[in-house]
């Protein structure tokens, strides 16, 4: 589709209100989904809940291939399909729902910088632990990733994915790192986030933004997911304000709705 047509479609989309039957697609929760995908999916769910937009979560074994960008998660709203947090934020903004409208230019720049930090550090670290740490890859990632497929497709796909991620790690210079260095990077990222948060309820004062959703998605998932080692979660647990931040968002946006 051409750019003009794309713009036209998104304008039409803007005119339509948020439908009741909006759906979020992610891999199978019990057997398949991996830490990084789970974190991204949770971030989008948190964001939509903060916006007050209802969405139904559907698990599909082929969610990754259904997604137009090949990334988890994606939402199906009306006849539009949008994947990943960034484009989804843009999409909801076009429909008149935004959490960052009240921010000034400096804050908006800061918001962008911190979101990049989280994506570059936490998400990359999650991918590294999943696929580059041999023990985790063999015991958790590969079996889970390939669980919906039968042999020999299961082996082909999981090794293909592992090879892909490792190639990406080499490209961004993470290939030479060891696990300890990655944990150290996570610590530094958490320290930066912890300092920015301080004693505020959210990163930008009293109102949550997409940054809060993103940080919550990643930290909460790391804290609650069992890996071969608890080191990653331990690093986060040393920042008490981040822990209480996670607990606060969980209570505000996830426990109220479900009860």
């Amino acid at each position: 589709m051409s750019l003009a047509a794309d713009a036209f479609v998104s304008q039409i989309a803007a005119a339509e209100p948020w439908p009741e039957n909006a759906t979020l697609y992610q891999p199978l929760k019990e057997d398949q989904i991996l830490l990084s995908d789970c974190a991204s999916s949770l971030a989008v769910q948190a964001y939509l809940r903060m916006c007050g937009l209802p969405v139904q979560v559907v698990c599909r074994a082929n969610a990754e291939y259904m997604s137009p960008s090949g990334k988890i998660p994606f939402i199906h709203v009306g006849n539009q399909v949008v994947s990943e947090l960034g484009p989804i934020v843009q999409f909801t903004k076009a429909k008149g729902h935004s959490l960052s409208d009240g921010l000034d230019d400096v804050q908006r720049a800061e918001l962008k910088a911190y979101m990049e930090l989280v994506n570059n550090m936490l998400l990359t670290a999650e991918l590294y632990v999943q696929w580059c740490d041999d023990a985790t890859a063999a015991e958790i990632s590969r079996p889970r990733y390939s669980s919906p497929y039968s042999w020999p497709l299961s082996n082909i796909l999981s090794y293909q994915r592992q090879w892909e991620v490792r190639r990406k790690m080499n490209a961004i210079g993470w290939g030479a790192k060891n696990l300890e260095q990655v944990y150290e990077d996570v610590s530094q990222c958490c320290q930066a986030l912890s300092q920015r948060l301080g004693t505020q309820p959210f990163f930008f004062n009293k109102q949550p933004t997409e940054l809060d959703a993103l940080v919550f998605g990643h930290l909460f998932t790391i804290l609650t997911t069992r890996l071969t080692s608890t080191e990653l979660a331990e690093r986060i647990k040393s920042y008490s304000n981040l822990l209480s931040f996670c607990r606060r968002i969980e209570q505000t946006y996830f426990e109220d709705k479900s009860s």
Partner: protein
Amino acid sequence: MGTVHAKSLDPLPMHGRDLGINNDDLMEPPEHEQESKQEILENKDVVVQHVNIQGLGRTKEDLLGYEISDVFLARNLIDVMKKAHLARQRLLRLGIFKDVEVLIDTSEGTDALPNGLDVTFEVTEIKRLTGSYNTMVGNNEGSMVLGLKLPNMFGRAEKLTFQFSYGTKETSYGLSFFKPQPGYFERKYGHNLTLNMYKVTGQFPWSSLKETDRGVSAELSFPFGMTNHTLKWEGVWRELGCLARSASFAVREESGHSLKSAISHTMSVDTRNSAIFPSRGALLRINQELAGYTGGDASFLKEDFELQLNRRLFWDSVLSLSLWGGMLYPIGSETSCIADRFYLGGPTSVRGFGMYSIGPQSEGDYLGGEAYWAGGLHLYTPLPFRPGKGGFGDLFRTHFFLNAGNLCNLNYGDGPQAHLQKLAECIRWSYGVGIVLRLGNIARLELNYCVPMGVQSGDRICDGVQFGAGIRFL
């Protein structure tokens, strides 16, 4: 008698040839006829004592024995020439010799009979490895195709072919190994084994679907009475994806990887006199495929048949009736995959409708159906006023056609009565007239004027002129 080159029968005198054709009657030659033949051709009763093959390199001699053994049965010179000529053609058909020359000479040596002949085949083998390359442009894509062929791999006409296509968008390859049963080189009559390994990519715009298949298959074909059978196992890794971002969600839901392992059996009887423009005879082909019992994600039973009857009428016109049908029965809780379902419509099936554009669809993307039938009644006639008769004009036919068909999904909980009712409602049909061009003996082109009828909402029609090419026709 000197040396006779029997490379072809053409230089022989006309009457000699006529006698040769009658030689079935001469198998036990009555003295009478023999004498008259001696007069005409200065011939006599002969015995083929030796058949030699010269120029063999890696080809095994036992393979050729089957092809040339008939030569020993010849009883006179014409017969020897005829049989040697046939043997030469059979040798060439193996596809392992560049050239074959036949040399017929009187026998020499200690055991030579006075009327003994020696036949010598001088063969030139094809190179161990042949290659080709070409470039193709089309469908918004350019590609380079590289082909390699080992025509005589182990010396018994085994063929190994490899084709690699490197395109601007897609690469594909195919590796195929063919092992004929010695003496039955033609696929139709022998127990032939074919092994394949391939990767192909297909784009199906009517479904907004892209499919990449990587697979291996083993195929055994053999005759049984009048019928030919093919047993096949195929293991395919299929990757489905959307062709465009605008693809309907129903197609998007089918994206991803799956593994199909299927055994299939095809039975066919073909008594037609030509595959493209038959004037008499019938074709029946029944195909069944069982997927899932040998592993893989897809499990279903698929039945499919094709029937064609031809009858010659007055003035070289031919009436042809065809009927197709098929059913896909998913086994277990899984629903059928979009790649396994049937599709109908287009210039080579139910004419007057868009390519595969009949039946269930979602946002303009056709999803296929689990059951279908289609029938066609054609009247083929030569071109009006018969221009180019006996030559170029015979590549063409005009035809009047009446096509009908239906494609739908069945609710397998209901009985057969309900299924038939479902298949009988909303029948699409069309009629029209057109010109058919035969391309070789495998494909044909059609230019038709069609009038589609019974159009259902969602069907894409082609009202008026429709052009089509293909190898399978309703």
